[in-house]
């Protein structure tokens, strides 16, 4: 199998079984040796047994020989002279002994028919002898003749015994010779078999040892390499046995390690790439790890941070409980850095259990921006107030002389009226018109200023009802005009300042009324639509419209996009409307097309 790849692994061999087989074979060889030794010893043992037996028979025969010889001696003595009667009891005793011995000899030669035969022959010969002796000693018959016969029989028995003994002796010599010749045989057999057995066992054992060794070495080497850091290294699987199984498992583990290391690196990269400082603390608030941004923000190197208690970064009574809070930290250069610190519990195992993770954001810029914004706001609102005060006083102050001009021009007209020529009368009326106009302008300005200073009272109002109200008022003021009002909503409740909203609607619907003045079939529509994820009210007309190119000027005070002779107005109306909408926190905008119509969209918060 190629190292580095591992498909589904199947264990088809087994070292354990091979070992078991080896042991069985070795045991079998051992048994063979024992068997061999047993067999080679058998002849040895048999020989010894036979020898022993032979010796025993020999002993018996010797004893018999003794008896017969002694009897023969008695006979010889008798020949030379002596009492036969004395010899008889001796004979009797001798006969008894002999029969006992011969029985013993027969028993001993059991299983050896040749020997048994000999013993029986001897037995017969001795019987003949004893018979002859009996006859002799009984005293009947011729002594000389009988003794001759007896002596012949004695001789024959003795000869047989002698022959028997010689036979036995040669037997035992032969057997002993055989034993002696083969005395080393069992030993040699044993040693030879033992040597063969040892070699065989060694061979088989070495075979297995080598196989296991090679596989394990491969694995050990792989372990060493992986430990050093080479996670791509895989151990080669030598054989599909138990060690192969282990090797496969090791390779899989290494693969898993590799995968995890990659993802670990990935995670580490993320932390290092963050634009915030990330610090992990342990239970004793010692810094375990810090990222690159930490160094950039605080100026300390990683070696200054890791392993040190984090107190030197934070202020004395900093609350380390989990949460988000703003505080001030001390940098290496002694600077106080405003930061936003997010603390959370770090759940882990072992050493990392119940630590803290701090994400620290440098909010210096933000704070600066906030301060700037605050200052700007203050300046702005101050300026606004000044402006309002100014416009109020201006319009107020302008009023006074205007009243004078108006009054005295009127007085002139009253006094001189009939006496004036046409041109002068015209001039005077033009002055009056101008004054009126100026008065209206100032009134409108004043109104606008008042509007800005008015305190807003929020009440729930039905804006649709208000629209209808305002429309009715317009109709009453110009009953001859035919204007159609379309209400897309019949009733709509909003939370707003009723007076301001009335002024707003008076302006918007008033404008719609005004600019449809030249349209025969004037239509005004009011409704609600969804624009940019929020609800907007709209007032739509099919009047004169305006050029969208000049839409920027639309809401500017005194900005008019139509001439006074076309459509009357001071140009403050839309500025007022915008101011009201903005005070409600809403937005106002318009879309239009010349001679087609206009839509004003507005929201109230």
């Amino acid at each position, binding site marked *: 199998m190629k190292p580095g790849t591992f498909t589904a692994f199947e264990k088809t061999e087994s070292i354990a079984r091979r070992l078991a087989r080896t042991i069985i074979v070795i045991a079998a060889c051992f048994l063979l040796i024992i068997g061999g030794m047993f067999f080679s010893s058998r002849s040895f043992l048999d020989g010894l047994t036979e020898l022993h037996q032979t010796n025993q028979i020999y002993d018996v025969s010797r004893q018999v020989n003794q008896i017969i010889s002694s009897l023969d001696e008695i006979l010889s003595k008798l020949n030379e002279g002596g009492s036969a009667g004395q010899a008889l009891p001796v004979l009797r005793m001798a006969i008894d002994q002999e029969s006992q011995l011969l029985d013993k000899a027969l028993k001993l030669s059991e299983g050896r028919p040749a020997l048994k035969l000999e013993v029986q022959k001897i037995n017969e010969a001795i019987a003949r002898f004893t018979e002859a002796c009996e006859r002799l000693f009984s005293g009947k018959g011729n002594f000389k003749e009988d003794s001759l016969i007896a002596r012949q029989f004695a*001789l*024959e028995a003795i000869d047989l*015994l*002698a022959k028997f003994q*010689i036979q036995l002796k040669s037997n035992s010599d032969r057997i002993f010779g055989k034993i002696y010749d083969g005395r080393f045989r069992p030993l040699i057999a044993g040693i030879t078999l033992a040597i063969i057995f040892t070699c065989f066992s060694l061979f088989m054992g070495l075979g297995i040892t080598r196989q296991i060794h090679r596989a394990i070495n491969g694995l050990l080497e792989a372990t060493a390499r992986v430990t050093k850091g080479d996670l791509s290294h895989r151990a080669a699987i030598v054989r599909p046995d138990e060690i192969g199984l282990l090797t496969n498992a090791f390779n899989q583990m290494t693969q898993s390690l590799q995968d995890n290391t990659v993802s670990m690196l990935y995670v580490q990269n993320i932390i290092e790439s963050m634009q915030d400082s990330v610090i992990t603390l342990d239970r004793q608030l010692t810094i375990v790890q810090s990222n690159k941004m930490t160094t950039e923000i605080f100026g300390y190197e990683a070696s200054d941070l890791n392993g040190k208690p984090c107190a030197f970064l934070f202020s004395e009574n900093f609350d380390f409980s989990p949460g988000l809070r703003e505080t001030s930290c001390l940098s290496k250069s002694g600077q106080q850095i405003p930061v936003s610190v997010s603390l959370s519990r770090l759940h882990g195992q072992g050493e990392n259990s119940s630590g803290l993770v701090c994400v620290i954001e440098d909010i210096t810029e933000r704070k600066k921006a906030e301060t700037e914004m605050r200052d700007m706001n203050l300046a702005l609102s101050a300026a606004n107030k000044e402006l309002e005060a100014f416009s109020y006083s201006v319009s107020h102050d302008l009023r006074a002389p205007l009243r004078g001009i108006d009054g005295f021009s009127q007085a002139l007209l009253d006094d001189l009226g009939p006496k004036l020529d046409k041109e002068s009368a015209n001039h005077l009326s033009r002055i009056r018109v101008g004054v009126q106009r100026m008065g209206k302008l100032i009134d409108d300005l004043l109104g606008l200023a008042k509007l800005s200073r008015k305190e807003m009272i929020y009440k729930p109002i039905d804006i649709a009802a208000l629209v209808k109200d305002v429309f009715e008022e317009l109709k009453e003021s110009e009953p001859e005009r035919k204007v159609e009002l379309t209400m897309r909503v019949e009733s709509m409740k909003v939370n707003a300042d009723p007076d301001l909203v009335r002024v707003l609607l008076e302006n918007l619907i008033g404008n719609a009324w005004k600019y449809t003045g030249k349209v025969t079939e004037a239509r005004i529509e009011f409704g609600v639509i969804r624009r940019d994820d929020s609800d907007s009210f709209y007032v739509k007309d099919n009047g004169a419209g305006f050029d969208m190119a000049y839409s920027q000027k639309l809401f500017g005070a005194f900005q008019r996009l139509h001439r006074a002779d076309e459509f009357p107005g001071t140009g403050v109306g839309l500025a007022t409307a915008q101011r009201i909408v903005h005070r409600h926190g809403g937005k106002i905008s318009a879309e239009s097309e010349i001679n087609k119509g206009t839509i004003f969209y507005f929201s109230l918060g």
Partner: protein
Amino acid sequence: MVFIVNAENPAESISSKELKDYFFKRKPQWPDGSPVRFIDRNESPERKLFLEKLLRQTSEEIDTFWIGQKLYSGNSAPVQAASQSMVIYFVATFKGAIGYVSSASAVTDKKVKVIKVTE
């Protein structure tokens, strides 16, 4: 000197070699299988003649022979009869017996017969 056997012995004549074999117990059986029983004489003129003429050996030589025989084959020297009448009695008793007497005239028992010994 004549040699005598049992009357029932079928043998009529034997060679001298056979005789010697019978005496020295080299041949223990007659041709018919019966055991040979040689009867010798004690120290006597008959024996002297037997040793000189037939065996052509001295008595000491014979004795030595029998000592050796006892050791190597177990055979003992044949029984020595004290007289000629004993010899005759012996041969008459045993079917396979063979012995020697001084002359044929000494043979008085019908159970005994003389055989010829050829060279």
